[in-house]
């Protein structure tokens, strides 16, 4: 966990008081909607189809059990008893009343949570690997850098009114779980030939109307220079980014238009001027922030303890879940456990207040009071003793978060779509729900291997459809819901934007079409262990097109 200081607390408290006053003035008519809108958006308050929505930041995806309990409280007291975990390590409540929002925010502030910079043209919540700090394949805890960037970017006066929103993600592991290549800035912490750690800096990635994979403008940036370099990027963007056309305002368009090399040169020139200034990071300051991340006092334990072996031998369901949802931990005798928020027929990423409370209790008992949120809309218990796994699994199973489908076909990423979102063309949740029912056979799903389906209800791509192995995008045709399908996208270290499969299909056909794509894959794969994404890479889109559209 990270220990926030009094500065953070005062900042968050002041913001709540300010917002309370703004809401009062809006309700009395002193402020028009035009005047109020930017103020509420600065506090993560959107107006959706049926109600206000509050988006709360979960910096670098780390939650304490106390914070999770507070989210349950907010769900229960101010909302309709559930919340929605998003693809950017945020949580959204969909039914909050405007006059109760300041109270909800004050309650959240009591556990140092807030909704600042979850909306608007500013630097948004910094995201990272949900396994940071415990992943065996990482070189260090990426959250330290997330926190350094959070402190630097919070209410940064120069970057509060950027041409457009700005998203930064960091990974420090060899496998990218944070989708850094589809962010405005992606940072990959790695070691150079001399064994020193530094950042590969990528810019101009992003989804939405025009999808791009980030381009590397600096293969290795020493740690001390992180803030000055990122500041230089933001300055170049702030100066040259387009403000005249919302569709061309993201940094990806600028990088694409002038080219990554030219963009990089501008950044380097700007950086030269500031690199040795106040933003140069001194090792003491880094160490100070790192020291605020507290790790549990791990016991000296061995891997595969007798309790675990006995549990695996005794219960095939536990064995299945273990193979799917449990991962190796940095520390022997411990495990990383993913909690699937993708039950059959459920809306992806939703958790009820009861589930949140129960998960908080389980985190207290089994995971050193800590929970993580991943961009795939699942939760993680990061510090579980392997010997506790059988007991923990029974508890998770009883609250419906132990579906062993992590990374399988029914582990669908989905945006809220037209059931909530005012910008949507089509619904996405019911499509996801129907897919989870169609692919309810988990034996079949395991036979398919890793297969990510991502769904967005419009081109804004909150459901990351471009980088789904199978991507589904809602479009409107003559007032009807249609869906475009793409295949071959991926969000990891080999990130790619998916290729269009063919003409859009109507709502009633979309699940059948996905089933046909999966059937085509089974027919086309070279071996049972060739993953869907590798088959598409090897043979391209056409063989899929032929099969899927042959009968349509």
């Amino acid at each position, binding site marked *: 966990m990270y220990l926030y200081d009094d500065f953070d607390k005062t900042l968050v408290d002041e913001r709540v008081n300010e917002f309370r006053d703004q809401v009062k003035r*809006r*309700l*009395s*008519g002193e402020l*028009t*909607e*035009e005047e109020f809108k930017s103020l509420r958006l600065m506090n993560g308050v959107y*107006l*959706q*189809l*049926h*109600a*206000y929505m509050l988006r709360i930041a979960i910096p670098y995806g780390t939650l304490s059990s106390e914070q999770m309990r507070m989210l349950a409280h907010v*769900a229960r007291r101010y*909302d*309709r*008893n*559930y919340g929605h975990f998003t693809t950017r390590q945020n949580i959204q409540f969909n039914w909050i*009343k*405007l*006059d109760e929002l300041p109270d909800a925010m004050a309650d959240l502030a009591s556990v140092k949570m807030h909704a600042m910079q979850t909306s608007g043209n500013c630097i948004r919540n910094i995201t990272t690997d949900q396994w940071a700090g415990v992943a065996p394949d990482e070189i260090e805890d990426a959250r330290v850098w997330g926190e350094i960037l959070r402190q630097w970017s919070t209410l940064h006066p120069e970057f509060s009114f950027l041409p457009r929103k700005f998203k930064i993600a960091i990974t420090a592991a060899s496998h990218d779980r944070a989708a850094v290549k589809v962010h405005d800035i992606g940072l990959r912490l790695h070691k150079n030939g001399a064994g020193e750690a530094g950042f590969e800096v990528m810019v101009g990635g992003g989804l939405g109307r025009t999808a791009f994979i980030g381009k590397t403008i600096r293969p290795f940036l020493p740690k001390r220079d992180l803030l000055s370099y990122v500041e230089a990027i933001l300055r170049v963007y702030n100066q040259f980014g387009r403000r005249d056309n919302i569709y061309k305002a993201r940094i990806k368009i600028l990088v694409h238009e002038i080219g990554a090399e030219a963009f990089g040169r501008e950044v380097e020139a700007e950086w030269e001027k500031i690199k040795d200034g106040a933003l140069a990071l001194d090792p003491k300051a880094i160490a100070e922030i790192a020291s605020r991340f507290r790790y549990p006092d791990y016991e000296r334990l061995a891997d595969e303890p007798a309790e675990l072996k006995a549990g695996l031998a005794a219960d095939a369901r536990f064995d299945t879940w273990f193979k799917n949802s449990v991962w190796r931990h940095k520390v022997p005798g411990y495990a990383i456990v993913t909690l699937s928020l993708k039950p059959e027929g*459920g*809306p992806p990423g*939703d*958790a*009820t*207040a009861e589930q949140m409370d129960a998960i908080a209790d389980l985190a207290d008992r089994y995971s050193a009071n800590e929970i993580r949120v991943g961009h795939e809309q699942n939760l993680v218990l990061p510090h579980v003793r392997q010997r506790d796994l059988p007991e923990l699994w029974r508890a998770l199973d009883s609250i419906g978060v132990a579906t062993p489908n992590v990374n399988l076909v029914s582990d669908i990423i989905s945006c809220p779509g*037209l*059931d*909530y979102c005012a910008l*949507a063309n089509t*619904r996405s*949740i*019911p499509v996801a*729900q129907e897919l989870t029912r169609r692919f309810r056979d988990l034996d079949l799903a395991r036979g398919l291997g890793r297969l990510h389906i991502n769904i967005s209800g419009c081109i804004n791509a909150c459901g990351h459809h471009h980088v789904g192995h199978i991507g589904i995008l809602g479009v409107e045709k003559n*007032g*009807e*819901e249609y869906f475009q399908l793409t295949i071959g996208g991926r969000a990891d270290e080999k990130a790619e934007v998916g290729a269009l499969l063919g003409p859009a299909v109507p709502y009633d056909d979309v699940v059948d079409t996905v089933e046909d794509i999966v059937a085509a894959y089974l027919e086309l794969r070279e071996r049972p262990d060739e993953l869907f994404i590798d088959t598409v890479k090897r043979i391209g889109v056409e063989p899929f097109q032929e099969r899927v559209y042959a009968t349509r």
Partner: protein
Amino acid sequence: MTSPLQQKLKINGPVMVTANRLGDGAVIYRTAAGEWTTEIAAAAIATTADHAKTLLAAATADYVRAVDPYVAPVEFTADRRVLPGNLREKIRFAGPTIALPGA
């Protein structure tokens, strides 16, 4: 911002004016008496662009009660009951098409 009265408004068929209620965001419809209602049956229906513009202008001026009013299509059932005229309005009227998890 251009006044709604100056905005071009083309309508193909009957329309109503709808918005979200300021306090809780609930879906509301403008009535002929210049009130707001959550009952679609009580919505004022316009069949000409001029009438729709007048309704919208009055609704927009009422910014203390309503947020972002706009003109939306309606349909009639055989017995002349008013129904929302497109999928978006149907979902706004009836709520999400999915079972809510916390219920």
